[in-house]
C-alpha cells in the first residue's frame, strides 16, 4: 500500500523554518496517498517563487516552470495523458498577479486537475513586496505608505468564473487541508484550492495567530450546503473570504476533456503517430 512516505524524497526544502508551505507539501503527500495513486502517476507542476519549489520536494514527477504559467503547462500535460494525476501549484503572485488570466480561464475550461495556491499575501522570495492579496493599507517595501489597491478576492472570482470546485484551507489545519486536496483530486474537473500559508518572515500581520482568530470553518456553519453557488457566494462575502473547507462543488458539470469532440478514450500519449497511406490520401483529397 502506498503511504505518504512514498511521496517524500531526499531533497531538503529551502523554505524558512515555520513557513506555511511545509504543511501544504505534507497535505499534498497525504492526500495523494489517501487517494491511492502511485508516485509515478502524479505530476506536480509549479510556478516561480518560494511556493514554486514544491514540485521538487515531492517524490513524483515534477515540473518547475516559469512565473505564472504552471496552469497552462499542467493543462497541456493533462491533455496529453489523461491517466496522470496533475496538481498545479504556486503562490498568490503566480496565480493572482502575473498568471491571473490563466487562473480564470483554467477555471472556465474545467480540465480535470487540481490547483493549489499557497496564499501568503506577500512576495517573499523577492524579499517583501506587496501582492494582489495584500490587504488595503498593508505596508511593504513596495508600498511604504500602505497598499492602495484593494485585495483581490479569489473565492468570489472563482465562484463567478464558472468554477466547479472551490475550497480554501489553512496551513495550521493539515487534517482539513488534506481532506480538501483529496476531494479536489477526486473531483472530475478543475479544482481550485486557495490555502492561507503564512509567510513568517515578511508578513507580520497575517500570522498563524491572526488566521486562527479570524477564520471560520464551514464545517462549523450549521446546514451549509456546498452544492449551492448562491449560498457559497453569500458565505464568502459575509466572512470577507475568511472561511475554510469546501465552499462549492458541482459534481454534475462535465470536464473539458469529456466534451472535446473526437477526443480519444485512451491517453493521447499512447497513440501511434504514423498515419496510414489511405488516411494520408484522404487528407490530400481536400486540396485537389
Amino acid at each position, binding site marked *: 500500500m502506498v503511504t505518504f512516505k512514498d511521496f517524500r524524497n531526499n531533497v531538503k526544502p529551502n523554505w524558512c523554518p515555520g513557513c506555511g508551505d511545509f504543511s501544504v507539501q505534507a497535505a499534498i503527500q497525504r492526500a495523494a496517498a489517501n487517494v491511492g495513486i502511485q508516485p*509515478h502517476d502524479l505530476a506536480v507542476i509549479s510556478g516561480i517563487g518560494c511556493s514554486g519549489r514544491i514540485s521538487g520536494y515531492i517524490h513524483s514527477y515534477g515540473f518547475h516552470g516559469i512565473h505564472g*504559467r504552471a496552469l497552462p503547462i499542467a493543462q*497541456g500535460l493533462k491533455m496529453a495523458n489523461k491517466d496522470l494525476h496533475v496538481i498545479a501549484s504556486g503562490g498568490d503572485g503566480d496565480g493572482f498577479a502575473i498568471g491571473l488570466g490563466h487562473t480564470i480561464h483554467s477555471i472556465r475550461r474545467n480540465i480535470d486537475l487540481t490547483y493549489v495556491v499557497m496564499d501568503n499575501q506577500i512576495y517573499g522570495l523577492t524579499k517583501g513586496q506587496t501582492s494582489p492579496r495584500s490587504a488595503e493599507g498593508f505596508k511593504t517595501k513596495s508600498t511604504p505608505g500602505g497598499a492602495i489597491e484593494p485585495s483581490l478576492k479569489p473565492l468570489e472570482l472563482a465562484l463567478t468564473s464558472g468554477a466547479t470546485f472551490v475550497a480554501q484551507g489553512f496551513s495550521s489545519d493539515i487534517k482539513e487541508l488534506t481532506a480538501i486536496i483529496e476531494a479536489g483530486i477526486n473531483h472530475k474537473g478543475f479544482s481550485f484550492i486557495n490555502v492561507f500559508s503564512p509567510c513568517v518572515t515578511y508578513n507580520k500581520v497575517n500570522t498563524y495567530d491572526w488566521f486562527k482568530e479570524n477564520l471560520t470553518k464551514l464545517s462549523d456553519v450549521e446546514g451549509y450546503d456546498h452544492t449551492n453557488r448562491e449560498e457559497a457566494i453569500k458565505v464568502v462575502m459575509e466572512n470577507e473570504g475568511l472561511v475554510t473547507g469546501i465552499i462549492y462543488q458541482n459534481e454534475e458539470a462535465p470536464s473539458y476533456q469529456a466534451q472535446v469532440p473526437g477526443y480519444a478514450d485512451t491517453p493521447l500519449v499512447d497513440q501511434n503517430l504514423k498515419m496510414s497511406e489511405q488516411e494520408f490520401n484522404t*487528407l490530400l483529397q481536400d486540396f485537389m
Partner: protein
Amino acid sequence: MLQQLSWKVGGQQGEGIESTGEIFSMAMNRLGYYLYGYRHFSSRIKGGHTNNKICVRPTQVRTIPDDLDILVAFDQETIDVNYKELTEKSVILADAKFSPVSPEDCLAPMYIVPFTEIAAELGTSLMKNMVAIGATSALLNLDKAVFQGVVDEIFGKKGTEVVEKNMQAIQQGFDVMAEQLGDRLGEWQLIEADGKHRMFMIGNDAIALGALTAGVRFMAAYPITPASEIMEYMIKKLPLFGGAVIQTEDEIAAATMAIGSNYGGVRAFTASAGPGLSLMMEAIGLSGMTEQPLVIVDTQRGGPSTGLPTKQEQSDLMQMIYGTHGEIPKVVIAPSTGEEAFFDTIQAFNIAEELQLPVIILSDLQLSLGKQTVDPFDYSKIEIRRGKLVQNEEIPESVDKSYFKRFEVTEDGVSPRVLPGTAHAIHHVTGVEHDETGKPSEAATNRIAQMDKRMKKLKHVQFNEPVYKNVPYEEADILFVGFNSTRGVLEELQQTLISQGMKVNHAHIRLIHPFPVEEMQPLVANAKKVVVVENNATGQLANILKMNVGGHDKVVNVTKYDGTPFLPLQLEKQVKELLADGNI
C-alpha cells in the same frame, strides 16, 4: 496564345472577391495549370479595397508577375488602384453598376459588363462574381463545362436550382462578353496544360497537414493573422485522430500548454505571428532550458508592434534566431514552397524530439496565405523519428529514491527522455539551472557541464537539404540568396538574367539556424557578387550570412519593406541598378 495569364479581381472587402478568385482558380487548377495567388487585403471585415491576383501557366509558378492581363473590377477604386499594372495588351472588365471610368493614361481598353444586373435578374446580385467569371472565360475561350464540376462542389449541397442559376450566370457572362468582344473572342487564350489533377493550397495548409502527418495530437493557439488557418485546419482534422485543439487565452498559454503536452509525450505545437512570438519568448527559453521538445510556427507579417498585420515582411529572422534571454540551443527552419512547408514541418517535429529543444518554423505572409499549386506529396518520404525517447522499457527501481538522470551528460548532448507516468523514472524538470537529475544546482562545474551539453545538441541537427540550390555555374557573376516566399521571384529572375548572358546561381536557405555554413561557403566563394534579397529594412539575412560565411566585400543587399512581395521586373531593375553602381 498566352504563355501565362495574370488575372486580378478587385472590389470592396466582404463582397465576394475572395470567392471569385477561388472559383476561377479551382477551374484553372482542374485543367492542369499551375497557379500562384496573392491577396491584397486589410485588417477589417467589411469595406476597404481588396484584390486577388492570380498567375496561371502550364509550368510551375511561384511568383506574381508585375503586369496584369485581365483586371476584373467591381468598383472604381479597383481600377484607380491597379490600372498601372495594365499594358496595351491587357483588358479591364468592369461592372456597369458603378459607371466605371477609365483613367486617361490607362493603356488597356475597358469593357463594361452588367455583372450585377445580370445576376440580379437571375435572382440575386450575389452571383455577380459568377457573371464575371463567365466574362473572363470568354476572353480565355474556356469551355464552360470546366466550371460545372466546381459549381457542383461549392453549391451542390444547396440544391440543383442554386447550381443551375450559378451555371446560368456563368453562361450569360460569357455570352454578353462574347458579343462585346466580337472577333477578339478568345484572344487571351492560354497555351494548353496537361490536365493533371494537382493540389492547390496555401502554405498554412501545407504546414498544418505536415503537423498532422508528423503525428501531432494537440495544438494550443491564439488567433492571429496570418497564422489562424493552421489552427482552423487542426480543429477540423484532429478530432478524426483523437486529438484536440485548445484556443487559449493568450500566446503565452499557447506555448506553455504545448510544452506541457510535449512533456507528457505528445507531439504538440502552436502557430502565431510576430506579436504572438514576442509573447512566447520566455516559454521558448523554458523549452530550451528544460529540454522539452516544442514546435512553433511563426508566420511573419509586417512589424514592428502591430505593424502591417495583413502585409508581407520577413523581419522576424533575428528574433527567431536569438530570441529569449540567455542562451539556448534552438533550430530555425524556413520552407519556401508548399512542398517544403509540408516536409519541413515533419522535419521540425523530428528534430524537436530528437534533440529535445525548440524548433521554429519560419514562414511569411505570402507563403502562408498565397495559394499555390503543389505536386503530390510522396507518402514514402514521410519519416517519424523520436530520438532517445524511452518507451515500453523496464527501468530498474532505485533503492534510495534517487532521481532518473533525465539530463545526463552524453556525447551528443542528448539525454534519455522518459515520460511522466513511467515507473522508476521519477525526476524533476526545472527552468532553474539543474544537475543531471533535474535538481536545482548553482555549482559552477555543473553549470558548465549542463550548458555545454545543451549547446552541443546543435551540432547534431539532422536536416534534409538545408539549402535549396539551383547552381548551374561553378563560377558565378551573381549568387542570389533568399529565404521563404522570395523563392519564386528569384527563380524567375535567375532565368531572365541567364538568358541575358549572365552566370547566375541561386541558393535559398531552408535551415536558418544553425546556419548551413558548409553548404554556403563554396557558393559564396565562387561568386563575384552575392545578392541577398529580403523583405525587411535592415538586411537581416545578409547580416547572418556575413556573420557565418564572411564575404563582406561581395555581399550586397536588396531590401523591400513596403508590405508587398518582390516582383520580377521590379527586382530586375533594382539588381541592375546595383550592378550599374559599380558594385560588380
